């Protein structure tokens, strides 16, 4: 699964600025961590996850970085169900259509 073939769609990672290279006047927590970058593109060479691989992005830029994911999926969704929101919905309908606003 970790094998990357030339032409595969992958996501790479780079460290842009090490903590000591970062801008002045950062909050203390941000100062301690590097500035990192992720970008996706087609692998220009064979390799495996964790290797330094050069990619060609959709705009045609060539960028080299550590391969972290093959066919990276979108991970965002609608989250866990939030019952509090349904309570709000019920209250709103009750106030407007089934009761009085001033209790």
């Amino acid at each position, binding site marked *: 699964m970790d094998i990357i073939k030339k032409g595969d769609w992958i996501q790479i990672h780079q460290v*842009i600025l090490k903590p000591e*290279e970062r801008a002045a006047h950062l909050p203390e927590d*941000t100062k301690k*961590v590097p500035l990192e970058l992720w970008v996706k593109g087609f692998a220009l060479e064979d390799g495996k996850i964790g290797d330094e691989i050069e990619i060609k992005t959709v705009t045609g830029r060539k960028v080299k970085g550590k391969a972290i994911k093959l066919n990276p999926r979108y991970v965002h969704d609608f989250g866990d169900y939030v019952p*509090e929101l349904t309570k709000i919905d019920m209250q709103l309908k009750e106030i407007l259509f089934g009761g009085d606003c001033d209790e």
Partner: protein
Amino acid sequence: MNRDMSYAAVMGRKNEIMKKAIGIDFDAFESGGISFDYERMMREAGYSLEEIQNIQSSTGVGNTPILELKNLTALARKCAPKGKGARIFIKDEACNPSGSFKARRAATAVYHAKKLGYKGVIAATSGNYGAAVASQAAMAGLKCIVVQECYDSRMIGQPEILEKQRACEAYGAEVVQLTVGPELFYSFLCLLEETGYFNASLYTPFGIAGVETLGYELIMQFREKIGRDPDKVVITHAGGGNVTGTARGLIKAGAENVEVVGASVDLSGLHMASDNDFNRKSFTTGHTGFGIPFATWPDRSDVPRNAARPLRYLDRYLTVKQGEVFYITEALSVLEGLERGPAGNTSLTAAFALAQEMDEDQIIVVQETEYTGAGKHPMPQISFAKQNGIEILFGDPDTEIPGQNIVFPNHPSKIKLRDFDLTKAKTSYIRNAINNYGKNVISNQDLEFLAKDTKSNVDFVLSVLTDIGVKVE
């Protein structure tokens, strides 16, 4: 050719890179002091209202419907004193091609880039503007790169920003994602230099002029459908472009008497450049973390002179709480059948409270909505907040502490008006101008400029200057 790509070297080439990437000679509008010729810049470096209407209609942007929110108005009236509760309307900007009013700004920026012969456009944004630029670039056949501040140092991304990444990629753009920090600007400059693409900044004269059609259209729609101008327009305020462009459009429509009200989500206490705070907020835009710094110093943006100057236009500035905006987002959905936002509902939340101090025959308009979906919805935002240790409560929204809890109002009457003191903002702006230019003595031209840029008067500016020991020559 091996350029020095170190942070200091690239930042040192900032002006040179920017000039190539934006095609505007900002020096032409400078006075040599604090002041610059704002109106001439808007006229000469931007486009006329008619030109923009043509550009936007050719890409399906604008002419979004005005909807009256009758149930939300009824709810506000139930909470208001007798006879109070203005009619609430919304301009459904989610109907734009990329799902938000930002399509208006992007349409003019991309048109301009294509006209000048650029092969591609780059925008630095984690918000709807990225999707808007990507969508417009797709139509124009230009390449597009969107640079996002997206992850904290654990590579955990804000759901809303992850959704914007997906949207940008759906429109065919390359998305470059970064961890938290102002050095995003460094990466942005590197990309501009590498590609020679156009800087589709949010803050150019044509970007801001792109929003003027929103204000203008709104007035024309009211005159046609309702027979009169609205009394107040409420505008979500972050970087200042929404307020500035809309207000300029109102003025161009001859609606000078309409009150311009800004609204932002209160995120006080959270540091915008903090790795820890980054994922402790549930709103990635329309909040005070942008709204206040951009109002009190607009020229902090990615262009030498920001065309978005909100203090020139704001009559009032209100803050709302995160829990209140989620609550009103639910109300819009279950009482009006419109699933929108949440961030775009910041101004709607303020309007809901503001309507209650207005008479029933008055009209208040919220001038935008935005699309919703996975990541960009109360459900993923609240469950993400819970995962990050934020407490979710019902109660008095005034007890909400950004980064610690989200307090849903236990009753809609708990959604309140909270005025941000504009006099304080204007004072900070004047102090910032003096500090940034390092002046002890300013010209009469500067004095008049500062009065205009703060929608105040010469006496007010003089009183602030006296306090900080600055003289007028």
